[in-house]
């Protein structure tokens, strides 16, 4: 295993005695000087030496694992590690095992996820060259395992909104052309947390990649999905935003007046909300419907109501009202 390191300092290891560690050159006026923990400087000293020698060997590969163990955000170490893996033609399945813990332990680390992205593409590339008729099957399996891995990471950390993780998932779907299988996954996540905006965004991206340009049927399906979600939880901003992704002006949208049930729903939400305060998203949608109808007065009344009840955005609503006559 390349990732396993031993406890003896490098200076005491026979296989490293030909290497002189290179100190860090902070200069005479260093700032933000980190009091490095024990072992940190030694490992980095050897890493600088290896880079200077431009050495891509097994020991160099194992050294990068030690550097990453000390600082997983060290992009130079990850970069150099990829160089070693390429030049040594290393076993990349082992490398996948090595990266497993990093993405679950440091989910917000750009380097780990980028490394993983490179790794999966590289493994697929090699399988494509080697495996002949079986290649496709192996590659599809690899991609699906990777989607499972993303789900595991979210579950282990109880974080279903991790940006780098979602980036990885979308890369896999795109790279291996798996968008068409993805909708059930989105629906499962949204059924667990209807307020998860990352899942809503993913839904849109799935539709965008699978069903574009939109047919009337798909658009109606998505509008209905948003409306059902609003019904179940009207104060959820995501569902309203999703609704307006298909209504108004723009590519593949229809006017706010095109689906009369939307107005019915808005009125219902406004009525129910009136007993407890207000729902700014419903008022905003209603204003858009009135603007689409050309009913400037009704829209202006809604904006002035919003100005009253949604104080933190009062100036925005006043400005929106001022545009009614102007545009």
């Amino acid at each position: 295993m390349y990732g396993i390191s031993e406890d003896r300092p490098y200076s005491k290891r026979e296989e490293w005695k030909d290497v002189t560690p290179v100190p860090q050159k902070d200069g005479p006026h260093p700032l933000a000087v980190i009091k490095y923990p024990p072992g940190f400087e030694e490992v980095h000293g050897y890493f600088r030496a290896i880079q200077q020698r431009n050495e891509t060997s097994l020991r160099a590969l194992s050294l990068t694992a030690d550097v990453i163990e000390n600082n997983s955000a060290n992009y130079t170490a990850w970069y150099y590690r990829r160089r070693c893996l390429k030049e040594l033609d290393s076993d990349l399945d082992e490398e996948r095992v090595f990266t497993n813990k990093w993405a679950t332990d440091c989910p917000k680390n750009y380097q780990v996820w980028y490394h993983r992205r490179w790794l999966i593409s590289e493994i697929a590339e090699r399988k494509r060259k080697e495996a002949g008729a079986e290649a496709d099957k192996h590659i599809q399996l690899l991609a699906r395992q990777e989607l499972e891995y993303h789900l595991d990471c979210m579950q282990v950390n109880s974080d279903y909104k991790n940006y780098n993780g979602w980036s990885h998932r979308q890369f896999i779907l795109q790279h291996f052309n798996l968008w068409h299988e993805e909708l059930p996954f989105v629906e499962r996540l949204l059924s667990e947390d209807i307020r998860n905006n990352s899942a809503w965004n993913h839904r849109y991206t799935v539709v965008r990649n699978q069903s574009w340009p939109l047919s009337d049927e798909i658009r109606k399906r998505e509008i209905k999905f948003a409306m059902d979600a609003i019904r179940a939880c009207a104060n959820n901003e995501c569902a309203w935003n999703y609704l307006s992704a298909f209504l108004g002006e723009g590519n593949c949208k229809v006017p706010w007046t095109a689906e009369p049930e939307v107005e019915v729903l808005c009125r219902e939400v406004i009525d129910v909300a009136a007993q407890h305060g207000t729902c700014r998203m419903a008022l905003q949608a209603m204003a858009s419907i009135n603007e689409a109808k050309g009913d400037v007065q009704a829209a202006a009344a809604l904006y002035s109501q919003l100005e009253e009840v949604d104080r933190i955005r009062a100036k925005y609503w006043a400005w929106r009202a001022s545009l009614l006559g102007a545009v």
Partner: protein
Amino acid sequence: MAVQLEGEATLTSEDQHSTEDAVLALFKHAFLNNAAQDISLQRELHRAWLKKGLVSLPPNFAGLDASRPWFVFWITHALELLGDYDEPHWSYQVAGFIAHCQDPTGGFAGGPQQLPHLAPTYAAVSALVVAGTEAAYKVVDRKAMYGFLMRMKSPDGGFKMHDEGETDMRGCYCAIATASMLHMLSDELLEGVPEYISRCQTWEGGIAGEEGLEAHGGYSYCGLAALCIAGKADALDLHSFLKWAVHKQMSHEGGFQGRANKLVDSCYSFWQGAIFPLLHEAFRQKGGSMPLPDDHCWFSPQPLQMYLLLACQHPNGGLRDKPGKSADFYHTCYALSGMAVSQYDVQGNTSIVGDIHNLLERTDIYYNVLVEKAERRSAYFNSLPPLEIDGRSLQGGEGPGAVAWRKRVLASRRVQEVDASPSSAIGRKGGYAGGDVE
């Protein structure tokens, strides 16, 4: 099915409620124990804590060893916002240390002898601009830098963060802002950039880190600021952008969230807060007959400042993401930067919550260094002869958007200085406005 307003509790709503409770408890405590004018920024605490960090950091910072120019920028910029950056004392050291992070092939790395990377490159150049001396400006090998920036361009119009590294929206901002600060923003560097950024504007209106991902405050700032600097903000749908951004200010907490249904976080005070003056500028760049408001305050500056002052100041110095977290330099820098952005409107009028001494220095919305430092840097690079690269002279400047905004800000400042009265220094909306929080 009848309409449910709240629906079933989920992970998102539970996290939101506990954060709201924690913030509102601090607000209540403050209102019961303080007179409005006593709500104050603990300048002494923060500056002492910042200066200590600029010199040395404890072992648990080892995981940030590839971000050292960032520490220099976060801390020196926070100090200059507080009006406490001691130029003779620090600038020599900043120039000396940052020079050691420069790579011979161009660009700056996260520390000495590391690989050059766009993020620490932006941080290093900004730190040199904060340093503000000719010696600091001269640290940058501009010729090599231009080569580095061009080398990072990726075929899709974005920028890689480093050789063989990832491409995302941070790269666009770091490359464009760096080129602008060094007067090297050329057409070839900008080629494909507006299209790339436009593709990353999402169905929600904000900008994502990569095409297909979720609209996000940090990436939204990066994409919008890059385009505004270049004078190319008309590549975006500005109305949907604004609609998205205004909804990211939290009704109860007053601060900003980075994405829909995420928690308030003080760093978005800058990333989201600066979007408003940028959009004001972007609408101006787009032209047309649409009436623009007098100022950029489509959001509410006062509740934002309330959140920062009452919920984010750590008793041991520094500012934090939200109650319950510890203070760190990143959040301190961007909480203060956001506070500064929210204190000045386009005309230079101020809006200050609490003690009038809470007013910070004005920051440039494009680079996030003081306006005065941006101007000083501009004068220096304007005085240089054109840069010769491979036998041709580089046709690159600061970008028309960056120049126009700073000119307007400095002009409004001069007007204010002429009719300075004691009250205009405090500002027309100065003082306490707790009512907005409810």
